């Protein structure tokens, strides 16, 4: 078994306070010690060259197993959404998905909560768990039938699985492709009020209270939504939520000129909601930042706005955009790594995303200040559909270790 020591790095320990120099000891594919520990003589020392050493990012909710993009972005594991060409509602498909990235990338599939993601009949969640599913998900959709949703939560809680849900009331959202407001009115786009999100969250929090289930709202993007989550957390319910950088740094005016790369689901929100989202990251309401990576080629995006598929390629920009939150003083680097690694691992119930002994030896070396410019024509991802094209950013993952092995 190989024994390694990462030396001369600045450790961004999610569980720590501040970023200081320290050592990480690794045996095989596991971390055995970290921080101010002695380096034994018989280990292979790896010099981090003064870079920030952090756990590999764990991306909670992506739509494709797009390894080049994940590796570029310092992402070592991702939870795969059940919305695949064949919905992940069967143990065989789950097993297949878990193997797709190995050995240098691990996929943790999210089991479809209902057969075919249709929102009517429970899928074989227990069998999918046995095959490697780490959570249950409603996919891109909200389950409109409250009775079905209650049974999904109840059943999943019996298996110890978190239910990952999409928060948009389907009656209000309908065929909307934008948030109600000036931009949607100017462009003549089908739109829904932002409260479609809070309405969905309000119902699902009540069902989580009744069933005692753990629920994770994958993307929360409005002030009203965060207010409900904040209250539920204060009450002690097992409620968590995530967001992606798009909602932190863009508002709905980004779709002006019918830019389909900014067509997302849920749609981009008002500037007030954007600011509330930053506030929710800063005050700890947000638990997870995800790329929501969904690479889409011209056949899905070079279309009239309402006909284009929603989604953005986010894996490559996840770290660099999130580092803005540290530079702007909203969160510490440690807290950021909690949002990007430790919390996703906790929700999925996997031993990763931390420096604690026994945790997976998935590490990234980050050069947090190196500037680069996002270029949609030169991305590692399967497609370059980023609304951040030509935006200057800072921070790159320079080196990735997956399971004790450098890529």
């Amino acid at each position, binding site marked *: 078994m190989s024994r390694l020591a990462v030396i001369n790095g600045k450790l961004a320990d999610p569980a720590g306070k501040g970023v200081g120099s320290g050592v990480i000891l690794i045996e095989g594919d596991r971390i055995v010690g970290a921080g101010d520990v002695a380096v034994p003589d018989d280990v292979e020392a790896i010099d981090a060259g003064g870079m920030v050493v952090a756990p590999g990012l764990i991306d909670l909710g992506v739509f494709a197993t797009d390894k080049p993009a994940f590796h570029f972005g310092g992402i070592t594991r991702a939870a795969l959404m059940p919305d695949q060409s064949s919905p992940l509602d069967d143990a065989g498909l789950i097993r297949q998905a878990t193997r797709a990235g190995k050995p240098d990338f691990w996929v943790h599939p999210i089991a479809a909560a209902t057969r075919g993601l249709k929102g009517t009949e429970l899928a074989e969640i227990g069998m999918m768990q046995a095959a490697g599913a780490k959570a249950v998900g409603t996919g891109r959709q909200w389950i409109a039938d409250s009775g079905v949703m209650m049974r999904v939560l109840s059943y999943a809680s019996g298996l110890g699985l978190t239910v990952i849900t999409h928060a948009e009331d389907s009656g209000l959202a309908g065929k909307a492709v934008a948030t*109600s*407001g*000036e931009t*949607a*009115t*100017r*462009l*003549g*786009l*089908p*739109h829904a*009020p932002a409260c479609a999100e809070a309405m969905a969250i309000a119902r699902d929090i009540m069902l989580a209270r009744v069933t005692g289930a753990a629920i994770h709202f994958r993307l929360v993007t409005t002030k009203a939504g965060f207010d409900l989550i904040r209250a539920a957390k204060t009450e002690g319910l097992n409620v968590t939520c995530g967001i992606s950088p798009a909602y932190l740094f863009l508002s709905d005016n980004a779709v002006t*000129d*019918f830019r389909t790369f900014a067509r997302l689901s849920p749609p981009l929100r008002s500037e007030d909601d954007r600011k509330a989202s930053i506030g929710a990251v800063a005050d700890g309401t947000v638990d997870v930042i995800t790329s929501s990576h969904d690479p889409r080629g*011209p*056949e899905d995006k*070079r*279309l*009239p*706005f*309402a*006909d284009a598929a929603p989604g953005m390629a986010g894996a490559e920009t996840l770290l660099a955009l999130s580092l803005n939150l540290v530079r702007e003083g909203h969160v510490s680097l440690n807290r950021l790594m909690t949002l990007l690694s430790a919390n996703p691992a906790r929700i999925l119930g996997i031993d990763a995303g931390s420096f604690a002994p026994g945790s997976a030896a998935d590490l990234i070396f980050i050069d947090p200040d190196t500037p680069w410019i996002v270029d949609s024509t030169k991305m590692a991802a399967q497609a370059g559909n980023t609304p951040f094209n030509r935006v200057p950013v800072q921070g790159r993952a320079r080196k990735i270790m997956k399971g004790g092995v450098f890529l």
Partner: protein
Amino acid sequence: MPDITVPSPSPDLTGRALFPHRHLLSIADLKPWEIRFLLDEAEHWAKSNRNGARKHDDRLTGMTQINAFFENSTRTLLSFEIAGKRLGADVVNMHAGQSSVKKGETLIDTAMTLNAMAADVIVIRHASSGAVALIAGKVDCPVLNAGDGWHQHPTQALLDALTIRRRKGGFEGLIVAICGDVLHSRVARSNMLCLAALGAQVRAVAPPTLMPPEVEMLGATPYHPMDEGLDGADVVMMLRLQNERMDGAFIPSAREYHMLYGLTPERLAIAKPNALVMHPGPMNRGVEISSSVADNPDRSAITEQVEMGVAIRMACLDVLTRSARGVQGWS
């Protein structure tokens, strides 16, 4: 008819500087003096269309105009076809029903195909907001938006403005009530921007379920009920209510809509005594407008709107092809 005062477009502008746009996609792209310039150009065609025994002009001879209509239309398509032919262009119509769009060809591929046929101007209607701009970005010739989704229908707004100017003499202080299904209406969006830019006081009059949010940002003040919106109006512009909106989704029924928002003679009496009635057509008689109002020759400008439509489209086709035709000052 009042005297028409035609304000000079903008001081010191000549040639291409008067209208420096390659395409006509949205009223939002136009400055007030650019709108006035197009109206002035159309005035000339309105006269010759009405007076001339020979309506034919040959300035677009040898040029190919493709009318690519991905959504059904009778009057707009006909209007563009007549406008092109009166200018001497070779006009070809493409209907979605007969096109390869039905066979799954993407919009971009269709655009590339049209472009490869070396059209000199393309007129496009499409059911999706933004679709016309998408095509315009991929072709080498001027593109005219003949209506895209709920977004824009710029020639309709221009022809409405020309009709109003001819009947009312100008726009300053004029109260224009745009009534009906504002939410789903590209005609309303274009007209609100256009008339507000020209100095009119624009009202959007609609039941709350058919009023777009933040309509004020397009230059209109929202009103309901109908009677409040009509009070003191100089122009009452009715919008077509699409059949599929009448089935309980946005309003309970056509007859209830007529009761609350239909333009009846009694309701028209709330507007100014000489208020002008307009409708972009086709009308749902007995739904948004009563026949007796639509057919009143003293008040209704509906057929004049159709007439001005040809003039406006001739002006737009002429102006947008000037650069390609090498008209002096426009290259």
